[in-house]
Structure formats: C-alpha cells, structure tokens
C-alpha cells in the first residue's frame, strides 16, 4: 500500500523529494485546526478507545450470569475469573484478564429502543428530531485539543457518530475496512516520479487563480491543499497500514475482529486520541444458544477483547489510554418463547479500563434475577466518569450555534469508586 520513505535507500533521492514537496505546495504552511497550546495536566493527554456492541448484548450471558437461578441461565455456564468472580463461560479469555478492567454491573437506561438507547449512550442526550449532539470524541477534541498534528484526531471504525452541532472540523475519520483504511483517500506512492510530475501540474494549474482570487474562502483551500500534500508524504500514515505490523504481533490479531483492535493500537501509538469502533450482531431475540449464533459471537468477542487488553498492557498503553466497552441495553433474564431474550434496559453491564481506572473491581450489582440494580449507573454517569478520567470538567458548558448550553455528560455524576 503506502510505501515508506524508509524504503528509498538513496538519501539524495529522499532530499530531492522533500524539496520537491515544497515546490508542490502553494506557499503558506499551516497545521491541523484547533490546536490548543500546551496541556495543563497529563489527564488531558490521555487517549480513549470506545468499543460499542450494538444490538443489546445479553448481560446474563456475558458478564453477569446468575448460576443461583438456573431457570434463567439457558445453556450458559459460568467460569471463575482471575479476580475470584464468576462470568459467563463464553468468555474464558476475559476471565483471565479481569484484573485489568473495571466491570459495572448496574448500568440502567430509560430506553429499550436501539436508536434512542444508543444515541443516549454515545452522546448523553436524548435523541431529538431537530438537533444532532456531538460524540464524546468531538467533545474531547474541542476541550482537550489535538495531540497529533498530521493524523485525524478522531477515527471511527464503522461507527457513524460524529460532530453534530460542533461542525465538520470535529467529524471523525471513518474507516469501513481496517485492512484498507485509506482506500479512496490517499494517493499511493506520492514520491514516485509520475506522481511528482502530477503534483507539480496540480500546483501549476491553480497558481494564477490563487494569485488573482485572494478571497478568504479560497485562501483556506490553499492552506489545506498544502497540508494534504504534507500528509501524503508523512510517515505517520503508516499507522493505518496493518501490513507494516511485525509478523509475530500481527499473528496474534489474525482472529475475528482482530484487525479492528490492531488498527486501534497502531493509531494509539501514533497519538490518535479517540478511536471508536462497533462490533455488532447482539440483538438475539431468538435461538440465542444455537451454536452458530451467540456462543460463536461471544467467543469471538472474548478472544478479540482479551487479545486487545493483553496487547495494550504489553505495550504499556494502558497507562495512557482509557478503554470502554458498552452496549445500549441488556436482555431479559426471562428466556422468551423463541429461545432468546428481548430488550432489557433496567440492568446491563459496562466496562472501563486503563489510565486512572481502578482495575480488577466490580461496581454495582443486580439481584438474583439479574433484573434490578443497586448503585445504578446511567449513560450520563458513565460518560461523566470517562470525562473526569480524561481531565474534562463535567460542569463546563459549551454553546451550540443556536446558543443552547450543553455539558459533556448532561449532569451525570462521575463515579469515584471506579477511579484509582
């Protein structure tokens, strides 16, 4: 895919290319928008990875089984974790990694509708027909600034939640296929002779127009054109190239969903500060325990998540990254006539891990029927906790273009028990 400048052995060639770049640009230098000078605390330099499981994953069959109430268990068994707890036997690898995460068993939501509940989880606000609220990542970019000058600060792997009323400069870079993330966006081999000739032509053809029409709108396009040329030649882009990963390491991720997590880790190493991904298919209203259905999906997720946590620990990234795993709601403890479970919003789980999180804990619990909770945690509370972990004041108000005030977690309460 993208060839690295490292592969050009000839130093002279490399220098010529770099000089050539200057000629290909149109004068001004600039940087990615919204840079904020300096950070006052290391919290604000943290990065976030949010894993979303759309559909409403069954809490009983994942992280909150109730072996004491066998009529609710279906075919699910339990397994002991390395923290002395019990989780579903479909998650044996996570059972060995529970010391790295904090598990919340008392999530609650007002909604049992996929769209409304997910929207609430992602933005902390109720979906309305007349406004789009920004994602957590957009908030982070707005209040914490940008860590990497060249790469996009927010990358979504399939997820569509974006900047809302904050505007397109806070929109995510969307990757649909992690194996081919930059397809259709970046010129391959920009340093080749052919492409250099092309880039020279590009500059020539518009030079007169830029010199004559010095209107502000046009100047902005000149600036971004220069930035794009810089980006195309930037080594940072390699972060998106999974084939550059060391072979042994890459092998670990050669599992279902593995490439999502490998890409996320590479981006973290390149200082991309917010990565959101979705892994779907959890809406099991019927035939939940069919071998090809939930058991397989759960096992795949289990392996992928565990691999990711282990990998982050290995690279020391858990010290500077917060990882969350959420679904929009849980599923009914009572098994339905169609051998599945239906939507259940009064109890479900959430996971938090990484920098500043109290690892190896469980917060909140459900009753023996997995149906009512103690110490309820709303999506707002969850997001308020996450905000605090990354140094954002939950009371800080910003204004939408039509002058309405908003806060990052809409009044949610950060949960101190989850913070180390």
């Amino acid at each position, binding site marked *: 895919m993208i060839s690295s400048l490292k592969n050009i052995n000839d130093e002279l060639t490399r220098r010529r290319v770099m000089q050539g770049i200057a000629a290909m640009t149109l004068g001004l230098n600039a940087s*990615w928008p919204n840079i904020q000078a300096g950070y006052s605390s290391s919290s604000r330099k943290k990065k976030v990875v949010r894993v979303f499981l759309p559909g409403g994953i069954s809490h009983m069959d994942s992280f909150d089984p109730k072996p004491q109430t066998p009529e609710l268990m279906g075919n699910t068994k339990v397994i002991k974790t390395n923290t002395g707890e019990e989780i579903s036997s479909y998650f044996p690898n996570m059972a060995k990694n529970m010391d790295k995460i904090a598990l919340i068993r008392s999530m609650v939501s007002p909604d049992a*509708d996929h*769209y*409304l509940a997910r929207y609430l989880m992602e933005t902390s606000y109720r*979906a*309305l*027909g*007349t*406004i*789009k609220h920004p994602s957590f990542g957009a908030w982070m970019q707005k209040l914490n600034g940008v860590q990497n000058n060249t790469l996009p600060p927010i990358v979504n792997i399939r997820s569509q939640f974006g*900047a*809302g*009323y904050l*505007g*397109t*400069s806070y*929109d995510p*870079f*969307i990757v649909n296929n992690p194996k081919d993330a930059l397809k*259709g*966006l*970046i*010129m391959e081999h920009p340093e080749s002779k052919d492409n250099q*000739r*092309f880039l020279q*032509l*590009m500059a*020539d*053809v*518009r030079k*007169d*127009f*830029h010199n*004559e*029409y*010095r*209107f*502000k*709108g*046009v100047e*902005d*396009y*000149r*600036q*971004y*054109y220069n*930035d*794009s040329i810089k*980006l195309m030649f930037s080594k940072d882009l390699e972060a998106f190239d999974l084939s550059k990963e060391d072979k042994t390491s890459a092998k670990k991720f050669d599992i279902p969903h593995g490439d999502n997590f490998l890409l996320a880790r590479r981006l973290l190493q390149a200082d991309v500060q917010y990565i959101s991904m979705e892994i779907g298919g959890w809406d099991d209203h*019927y035939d939940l325990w069919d071998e090809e259905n939930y058991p397989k999906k759960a096992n795949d997720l289990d392996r992928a998540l565990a691999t990711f946590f282990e990998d982050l620990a290995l690279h020391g990234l858990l010290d500077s990254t917060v990882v969350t795993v959420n679904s929009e709601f849980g599923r009914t403890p009572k098994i339905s006539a*169609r051998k599945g479970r239906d939507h259940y919003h009064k109890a479900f789980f959430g996971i938090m891990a990484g920098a500043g999180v109290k690892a190896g804990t469980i917060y909140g619990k459900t009753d023996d029927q997995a149906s009512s909770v103690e110490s309820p945690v709303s999506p707002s509370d969850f997001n308020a906790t996450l905000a605090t972990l990354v140094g954002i004041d939950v009371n800080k108000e910003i204004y939408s273009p*039509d*002058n*309405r005030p908003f806060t990052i977690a809409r009044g949610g309460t950060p949960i101190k028990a989850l913070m180390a």
Partner: protein
Amino acid sequence: MNLKTHLSCSLILLSIFQLGWAGKHISDNDLWSHVVTIDRLAWQEREDIKKVNKQVDDQDFVRRIYLDITGKIPTYEQTTSFLKSKNIQKRSLLIEELLDTPGYVSHYSNFWLDLLRAPYQNSEDDFHKEFNRYIEKSLAENKSYDAIVKELMTAEGKVQENQAIGFYMRDRETGTMDTLNATVRAFLGTRLGCAQCHNHRFDKWTQREFYESAAFFHGVSYKRTYGNDDLRIIRTHLDALLKNDPLAASLSPYAKVLFLPSRSQVNYDPNKKLTYPEIYRYDDAKPNEIVKEKIVFGYGDEKVEGKDRREVFANWMTSKNNPMFARIMANRLWKRIMGVALLDPLDDWKDNIVIQNPYLFEALGDIFSKLNYNFKSFLSVIFNSEAYQLGIDLKNEFKEEDYKLQGSLFKRMSAAQLNDSLLTLQYGNLDRFSKLDPQYFEYEDKLNLLTLEYQVKIIPLTTSFIVKNTVNSKEIDPKILEIMSSYAEKIKALEDYYHIDKNGYINKSGMSIVKNNNSKNDKSSDMMNTDSMMAENYSGKAVLRSNYHGSDFMDVFGSTDRSAPDTNVEMRATMKQILKLINSPECLNVVRNDSYLMQECSKLDKLTDKVSYLYYAIYGRAPTKKDFNIAVNFFEVSNKQSDWEKYVIALINSPEFYFIK
C-alpha cells in the same frame, strides 16, 4: 438619485420597452414591476457604499444561473450556445427555460427535502422514496407553496395512498412534538423547541404556548401495516418465485421491490387529546389537564375553520393574513440564491430582532404573496433582478457581515452542486435521466393502487402461515406464491403498457425519450440509446442525484445532516475535502474512459482544441496563454490517455472549478 441609480433604472426601462416578452411563468408587467421594486430597495441599501460592482458578464452569468437554477454546471454545448447567441433578451429567456427543466426540479427538491429534514433514502421498505416523489411531483407541477404546506400538514393514510405522509413519518421514533417544532421553524421562522420543557430562557415563548401549539398535531400516530415476521415469510416466498417464475424475474428491479411494499402508515385521531405533563410546574395550567389548542403567534386571524386540528393550523399558517409565511420562505430562497439572508438566522425570530433591510425583507414576502405563492414566478423575479446579476470584483472583497448587496459573494458550490457538476462532466446533460414526464407519475400511481390490493390479499396469508409454521421455516405456501404470481402479471401488463424498460425508463420505439427543453441545443442528447443503461450505472433507482447518499462525499463537502433545516452546512475548507478531490471515486469517475467528457475530448485532435474544450467544460472559459503553456509543457513529457486523466483531475482540483464567480 446618483448616476449609478440612474443608469440602472434606464437599463431596466430599456429592457421593458424592447420586448415582446411573453414570459410563461409570470406576466411581463408583474415581472418587471417586481424587479424594479427589489432593485430600488437594493439601491437604497447601498447609499453609503463607495463601490458597487458591475453586472456579471455573460460567461460568468451562464455558469452561475445553471448552478443556481438546475444545481449543476452547464455542458460545453450549453455554455457555448448561450455565449454565441446575440439575442438581447437571452438572459431572461434562459431563466425561463431553465425553470422548466428537470434540473430545476431536482435542485429545488433538495432544498425542500433539506427543509423538511427528510432522511436520506436508504431502505426499500419505508416511506422515503414516495416522499421524494411527492416533492418532485409538486415542484414539476409548480404547485404553490401554500398548497404544498397544507397537503403536508393534513397528510394521512398508507404511503401508497398518500405519499406526503413522510412529513410525519420522519419523526416516528420521537413523536409529533418534534414535527411541530420543525414545522414552526421551517414555515414561521421561529423556535418553540426549548419551551417544550421549560419557559424559554431568551425569549417569550412559554411552555404553555408550546403545548397549545403541539395540540394541533396531537392525535397523529404511526403504524407499520405488517410486521417483521410477515416480511421474512414474504422474502422466502419471493426467492422461490424469482427462481421459478420467469415473468416475475423479468420485471424491472424497481418493480421487484414492490413485492415487499412499504409498510408505513399515518393515522389521525381527532379524539386523542394532549394533556399537560405530570411534572408541569407553572401556574398557568394544571398537570394532566387537557390542552386546548391555540394559535400563539399573535398575528393573523386566530379563528380559523377546518375539519381537523391540523387543517385549522394549516389554514391559518398559509393564509395571506399571515405575512410571515410568505416572508420566511422568501427569505430562505433569497439566502439560497444570494448567499446571505435578509433576516438572519433564517428561523429564530425574536421580538427584538434587527433586520438589515426591513423594507426589502417585507417587499420580498409581499411579492411572493401577490404572486399567489408561485415558486417559478417568484424565482423568475429574483433571477432577473439587477441585485442578483451583480458580479464579483477582485479589488472589492467584502466580508459577509459588510454585505449590502454591492456585488455578489464569492461562494463555493454546495455539496449537491459539486456532486451534480461532477456527474455532468461524467455523463453530459443529466436532465435526460429524470423521470418527470407525467407518464411516470401516472404509472407510479397505478402501481401504488395495485400494491395496495396486493398487500390486502397477502397479509392474511402470511399471518396464518406464521400460526402454522415457525418464522424461519423454509416451507412454501402455494397460495402465497399464487398471489405473488398474479401480482407479477399485473405489474408486467402495466410495464408493457407504459413501455417501461428493465431500468425503469419509458422506452418508445427503441430509444428512451425524456423530454427536456435543452435538447435542441444539446448534442449530448444524441446519446439516447445508452441513456437508460447509463442511468442505471450512475444512479441505480435514485432519481434525485444529490439525494442519494451512497458515500460520504457530500457529507465531507458539508451537506446538511437533516437533523434540522440547514443544520451543519459546513462550507469551510477541510483537509478531507482536498483528499476527496484528488482521490475519491466521484472525481476519478470523471476521467474514466467512457466518461462523456473524455469521449468528447478524444474526438478532437489538436492539443489546443482539446485544452480549449476542457477549459470551457470545466471552468466555462477559454484558456489563457499561460494555461496553454502549462499544458504544452506537461504533455511534452508524455501524451498518453493516463496523462489526460491526470490533467483533468488537476483542473477539477483548482478552486476555480468549485467556486462560483
């Protein structure tokens, strides 16, 4: 009166006396008297402005007017034929002509669908397609503004019976209060939304007034006329049908979709009454008390007649006694065309609002009202005005906040205009792909009736099937297949009657013919034979090109996300836009071998002719000496097809392409 004013008025008077002008959309008298009104008020605004720009020249006019009426650049042929014409009235004639093209319908349908927050078309079994068609048809028929609004607000029934129910269906997940908010915002230019939960912080609307307004729409409910399980069964049977029934398999893809007809339905029950919420905290009403609907806007006649509450509300809103109705839309159209609104923001009217040119703001509304809310007439007036036809001046750049109609703003194309302009380069005149011939609407109406019959017959069968088998059963019920088969026969008969080809186009005597007024000047209409296939290639089933969000290209260029009218229209530059211009499929398609632009260019031999052709097609102007030199130097090194591809991409990447002079 200063010299400029004098000259300007003289020009206008001169045009009037030249005439024999018999405008189709507006009478001679009306047009020029309204134009004079606008231009006189515009001059008043410019009194303390030192420099007023000149009128735009023909070259810039033709590109601009095509973009502003039809949403896309003119083709090479359209540009050159306009420039060659010596007719002194050619600008007015072109405006008339363009208002009658499918391009107008498409461009202004997008305007409406943005305003109504219509979700982008994505699923086949919902209401989007019908709603798009409703808007298209209304604009093609030049239905008046008040008629459209009334139809939208009183819509009900199954989507096959009334395509306008999309107006309500849009908010089926969140409810009619959102529709109420959006309606008041769109058509009355003010925001009740905050008052939904509390008395408005910055303005006078109280929560009680919100509820009194919301009461008009209360009683609307949304239904899906058959369930997911029915869908599954129909799909299983459809697979079987298509395998075994060659007639069904031969139907156009458009028709095949109809075996799974849209399930959407809106009902209205006037007996359902809205109540104040349980946690209502103000003194002016009691929690759980029934809300009496009321027109809270303080203008117009409050006692209005109608059969249902929605009709009462719509009649009041659209009445000529309610001047805001005309003014708000006139202002929206003015902003869309001129780039800056007279009343800004477009939809946040407060009592203390300051309007820069209140006389012009009111006059525009009055003109629209006097023209009986006729869109084509009204637009004709704006486009013929001198205010619209002023150009830009490189030495006279002014900021938006200093804009006083002293010239035109140098704007970038909107995402939709950019999208369609690229498609024009790729396919030539896009109007021939439209489906606005009245025969299409006739055909679709009959298809809808058939579909209703089919639905009524098939649902009882799927329901009883579920009782006997599990939902995932692969069993086939021959009775269901029989209904589907006979339905297929009836559709086939309809398609034959209207000569619909497999791409959904009317095909008369071997050539697909789509009426379009530009065909006499337009060589690209010679490509008729392959039109139908091309249409399938570029749009699939979507007729409104810019309405089809197959990729994020338009989002990247800042098209609205339709969460509210005009929301998040981001016209500023971003890096992603630059990358898209260089690498995206939308741009690379323009340089495909079979693209119209490349084919036409390859017919020319001399380098200078080719470069000339490309500059006219892409920028609407002749290349300068410098431009020729750049080309000569570039092609000296290599002159292959791939070099021409690079050359065209380079031309498209210059802001000269996507800015409008």
